[in-house]
């Protein structure tokens, strides 16, 4: 047993990390080996047989970042948050510890507390897993007689329960409404096409011409992105002659091949 009493993942029989990745988006959707950043951190500490109360933050931070990269977790917010926390801790550990004899607040204390707490959760989870396994060896009666054709048993329903349920439903819907994203994609391709068409006719157009007549906010954003992309590619130049002056879009000088 490692010095920190690391417990292995109860549900995973394989020891090799296996990662489920949603192919097209690159987002990690499921990690079978680690249930979170604290789990990964405990694993690293366990491998190195590190005393949890005295974590060499610099080394562990580097290993954590490496592991996050190796496991393809670069896009998992929970892991990134822990990574940045470790990097911050690493920096704090480098600060001078004040005059000798003075009290020193160990910046690692909070992390240690969380790790110990989480370790306990894992310990209980393992116990619960074994308990459920033992329980599953006992079958309840498989055949259950159909309920008798009697008047149904009295339901218990009261207004307090109902109102509590209303509150729960409202609480659940408020959130998504407030953060609702307008699902209307920007049409950057269309804007690019429109600008290129204009520039094919004339060497120079104005911003107002580029966004077109009666633009919506979506048109404005699409055009802006299209222009930036064209400028990046060097297909068009954006020129502003004075501060807050109108932006002029200029066609790149025709290439010899054209």
């Amino acid at each position, binding site marked *: 047993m490692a010095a920190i009493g690391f417990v292995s993942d109860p549900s995973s029989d394989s020891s090799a990390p296996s990662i489920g990745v949603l192919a097209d988006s690159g987002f990690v959707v499921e990690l079978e080996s680690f249930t979170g950043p604290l789990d990964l951190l405990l694993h690293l500490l366990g491998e190195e047989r590190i005393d949890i109360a005295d974590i060499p933050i610099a080394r562990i931070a580097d290993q954590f970042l490496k592991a996050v990269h190796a496991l393809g977790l670069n896009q998992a917010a929970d892991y990134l948050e822990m990574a940045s926390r470790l990097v911050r801790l690493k920096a704090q550990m480098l600060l001078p510890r004040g005059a000798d004899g003075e009290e020193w607040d160990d910046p690692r204390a909070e992390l240690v507390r969380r790790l110990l707490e989480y370790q306990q959760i894992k310990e209980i989870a393992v116990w619960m897993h074994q308990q459920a396994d033992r329980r599953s060896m006992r079958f309840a009666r*498989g055949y259950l007689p159909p309920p008798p054709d009697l008047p149904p048993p009295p*339901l218990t329903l*009261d207004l307090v*329960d109902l109102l509590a349920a*209303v509150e*729960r439903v409202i609480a659940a*819907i408020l959130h998504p409404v407030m953060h609702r994203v307008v*699902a209307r994609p920007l049409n950057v391709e269309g804007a690019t096409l429109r600008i290129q068409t204009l520039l094919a006719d004339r060497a120079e157009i104005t911003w107002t011409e580029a966004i077109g007549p009666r*633009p919506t906010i979506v048109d404005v954003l699409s055009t802006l992105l299209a222009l930036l992309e064209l400028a990046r590619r060097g297909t068009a130049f954006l020129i502003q002659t004075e501060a807050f002056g109108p932006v002029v879009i200029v066609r790149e000088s025709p290439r010899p091949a054209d």
Partner: protein
Amino acid sequence: MNPLAQLIEAALFAAPRPVTVEELQTLDPDVSLAEFRQAIEQLREHYDFDGHGVEMVEMAGGFQIVTRPAFAAAIERAQLNQKPPRLSAAMLETLATIAYRQPVGRAEIEEIRGVNAAGVLRTLQERGLIEVTGRGEALGRPLLYSTTPQFLELLGLPDLANLPRAEELSIALQAPKPIDDVDQDAAAFVEADS
């Protein structure tokens, strides 16, 4: 009881249907069918002579352990073989949504609660708490659900108008806005801004 009778007892208890002797033999292929039949008889006799509340019956070509008819009436009266009558959180939340938004279609309920509602709606219907009271105008003319008089009776309310904070809550319980509405807002925003 001998080990084979014990095994048979456990297997018949756990099985969801009558089990044939041939199926029972797969429990232990080294034991002959005759031995299985003998052990079944032994188990049956044990139940009878020892005065158990259950007995062995042969039905649909197989064996099954069932409660003795003498106790059926008492158990039915106590309704121990029914699921607990308490409404689950999902049922309560669905019922609450319908109570304040009725008549309301399944799609809107699912939109509000964020989960599939088919199973819960069926249960609530079986329980007599909701009923279909019409069809909506939307595509596919969806069924619309309302609460029943029995629902009011359970709450001890004379009518729906007596539901607490009816107006306030029916507004609060609206489904998240459909995309079209949001877009209109966006258009208004652009106009106001230009």
